[in-house]
C-alpha cells in the first residue's frame, strides 16, 4: 500500500517538524534541541530500509531547512538527512539485534547527521559555523537525541508497521 504508506509518513514528518521547531525549543538543554525529524528518518530507515528513508530524508530536511526561524543555506539538513536515512537503512539488520546495537545506530546516525550539517555550513560559508563550535554542540546533541529516541523510535516503529497488515501477519 504505497499510497497509505506515503500518507502516514508525510503526516509523521509534518508532525515532527512542527514539534521540533514549535514545542521542543522550550525543552532545550543548553540551547540544543532534540533532532526529532532526524530520529523519525532513522526510525523509518530501520523499518523500511535505505531507499525509502533517503527520499523521506530529502523532503523532511527541506522542510526543516525552510521552517522559520532557520536562516542557513537551504539544503543543508536535506543533504544531512539523505545520508542519515541511507546509512541507517543499510545497518538496519544489525541495529535490530538488540537494544545496545539500536542505541549505537541512533548515536552514530546523529553524529553523522550533525557532522554533515555542520561541515556543509563550512563549505557554503554560512556565518557562525566553525569546527570548535560543532564539537561544542555535538556531545550534548548525541546524548539528548539518544535519550529522546528511546521514546520516539517505538512510536515511529508502531506507526510505520501498523499500516502493513501483511507484516503483522508475518510476525504473528
Amino acid at each position, binding site marked *: 500500500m504505497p499510497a497509505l504508506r506515503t500518507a502516514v509518513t508525510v503526516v509523521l514528518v509534518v508532525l515532527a517538524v*512542527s514539534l521540533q521547531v514549535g514545542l521542543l525549543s522550550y525543552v532545550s538543554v*543548553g540551547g540544543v*534541541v532534540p533532532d526529532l525529524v532526524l530520529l523519525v528518518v532513522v526510525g523509518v530507515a530501520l523499518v523500511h530500509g535505505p531507499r525509502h528513508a533517503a*527520499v523521506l530524508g*530529502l523532503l523532511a530536511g527541506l522542510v526543516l531547512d*525552510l521552517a522559520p526561524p532557520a536562516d542557513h543555506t537551504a539544503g543543508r539538513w536535506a543533504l544531512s538527512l539523505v545520508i542519515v536515512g541511507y546509512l541507517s537503512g543499510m545497518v538496519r*539488520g544489525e541495529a535490530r539485534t538488540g537494544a545496545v546495537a539500536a542505541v549505537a545506530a541512533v548515536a552514530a546516525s546523529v553524529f553523522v547527521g550533525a557532522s554533515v550539517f555542520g561541515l556543509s555550513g563550512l563549505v557554503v560559508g554560512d*556565518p557562525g559555523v566553525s569546527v570548535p*563550535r560543532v564539537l561544542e554542540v555535538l556531545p550534548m546533541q548525541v546524548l539528548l537525541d539518544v535519550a529522546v529516541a528511546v521514546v520516539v523510535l517505538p512510536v515511529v516503529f508502531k506507526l510505520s508497521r501498523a499500516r502493513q497488515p501483511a507484516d503483522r501477519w508475518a510476525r504473528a
Partner: protein
Amino acid sequence: MTPPTRRDDGSSRRVLMLLVLAAVAVMAVDASGDDSPVDVARSTVGDVIGPVQSGFAAVAGPIDSIAQRFTDAGELRADLEALEAENARLRTELQTAGIVRARGEARDVMALRAQQSGFELVGAEVVAFGPAQSFSRTVTIDAGTVDGVQADMTVLSADGLVGRVVRADRSTATVLLVVDSASVVGGRLDRDLELGLARGDGELSDDARLHLTTLDPTTTPEVGDSVLSWGSNGGIPYVAGVPIGWVESVQTNPRDQTATAVVVPYVDFSALDLVSVVVGAAASSDAAQATGAKDGH
C-alpha cells in the same frame, strides 16, 4: 522485510546519488543570490509553520518558565539568594498575575521609549528560538506582513536592542539577534560619542558578547561605557539611540594600536519574550497607541 539483495543495493546507491545531488542543487541555488526561488518556498513554509509555532507558544508559555529554570541552572546557583528574596515576595501573588504585571511594565517602558523617540512600534511575542545546533541566533516573532512588519526593520525590547528582521512572512517574522556572528551593528559610545562597529560572536550559550571596534583607532572605550545604536540611513535596518550594552573589558592590540571592546548586551537573549518592531517614525502621540495595538495576547 526482505533482506537487501545485490540488485537492491545498486539501485539504492543510484537513488542516494540522485538525492544527494538534489540537496546540493538546492544549496547551490540558495547560496547563489538574494532573490533565489528558495525564498518563495521559504515564505510558503513560514506561512504554514509560523502559526503552528504561535499556537505552541500559547500552550507552552506557562511551561516555559519551568524549562527556563533547567536551562539556566548554573547561572541560577549564583543568583540563589536574590531569587529567594524575590520568591518570598512573589509567593503572595498568583504566578500569572506576576507575569501579567511584568509584561505590563515591559510594555510601559517600550511605550515610553516610543513616545520619547517618536518610533512607531508594533508589539510582538517571541514564539520560537533557533536551536544551538543550527549555529545561528535567530528567533520567530508572531508579527508579520499583516502587522506591517517588513525585512530589515529594527527589533527592540524593554531592555534594549534585540536585532533586525531578516524575513517577514504573513503572520510571523524571523529576527536575527545582534549576538549572531553575521550581525554587525553601528554603535556609539555615550561618553564621547565615538562610533564603532559591534559584531556578534555567535556564542551559543547565554554569555554571548558583542565585539566593538572603534572607527577612530586613537580613541579607546572605557570599561562601563554604554553603547547605543548609531542608526542607519533612514533607520533601516537599525534606528538610532537604542541601548545595546555596556563595555565589560577592553583589549588593546599593541601592534596596530587598535582597541576592541567586549560589550555585554542589555538584553537577556535566552529569556526573550515581548519585543517591539520599529515599523516607522510617527508623531509621538501615535506611538503609545501603536505599542498597545497587539494587547490581545
